[in-house]
């Protein structure tokens, strides 16, 4: 199997389907024993209505592909998938899906965490928060997130 078929990276405004993505990854190799995933959604509260996700086309896909290749090798994955949405997303809508499959659970779960931790501060996406009272605020990167990403 080529590395290319083991990795799937998508940046899109359309929704994605967790079931379909899971099935695709499981079908890669009968020696898969576990699949970890993280799904990030627009979290409500404090009057938040929506997020506007901006990205740097081209660089984004390139960065995520490098990240996926890094994870594949580092954790001996069977495969991994990163899907990130852009555009306006309302509370409760999925933003990002990360999947990692491996022979054993430890590698699948470690890789899942690695992928989302690194993606948070390492791929060119920016979020603006849109509130019910009309305010629009760019999200500041959290020092904590940068520290977590650097810890890997």
């Amino acid at each position: 199997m080529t590395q290319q078929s083991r990795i799937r990276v998508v940046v899109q405004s359309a929704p994605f389907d967790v079931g379909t993505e899971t099935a695709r990854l499981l079908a890669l190799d009968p020696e898969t024993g576990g699949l970890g995933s993280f799904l990030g959604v627009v979290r409500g509260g404090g009057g938040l209505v929506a997020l506007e996700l901006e990205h740097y086309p081209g660089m984004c896909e390139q960065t995520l592909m490098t990240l996926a290749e890094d994870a594949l090798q580092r954790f001996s994955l069977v495969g991994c998938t990163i899907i990130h949405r852009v555009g306006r997303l309302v509370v409760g809508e999925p933003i990002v899906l990360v999947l990692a499959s491996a022979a054993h659970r430890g590698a699948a779960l470690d890789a899942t965490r690695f992928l989302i931790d690194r993606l948070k501060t390492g791929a060119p996406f920016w979020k603006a928060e849109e509130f019910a009272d009309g305010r629009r605020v760019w999200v500041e990167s959290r020092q904590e997130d940068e520290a977590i990403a650097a810890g890997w």
Partner: protein
Amino acid sequence: MSDSVTVLYFAGLREQVGRESETVTLAPDVQTVKDFLAVLRQQDAAFNTVFSQFPRMRVAVNKVMGDLSTAVQNGDEIAFFPPMTGG
């Protein structure tokens, strides 16, 4: 090789600069991102104000993360943006 660079701005920085891209011809003595930023400040005083609002501004040259010492030359795509907040 092109005789200019494409400059891109993203997110809050894009809004403050007031445009998302522009084309700039490099003077022969511009070797690095640091040199290039000095040129931008020189050409448009508003950049001083904008850049001071983004002390943690990041740069990518040809879609690869760089820093003040990264080399630039005509034909490059140079992007400035605030720290990334994906996921």
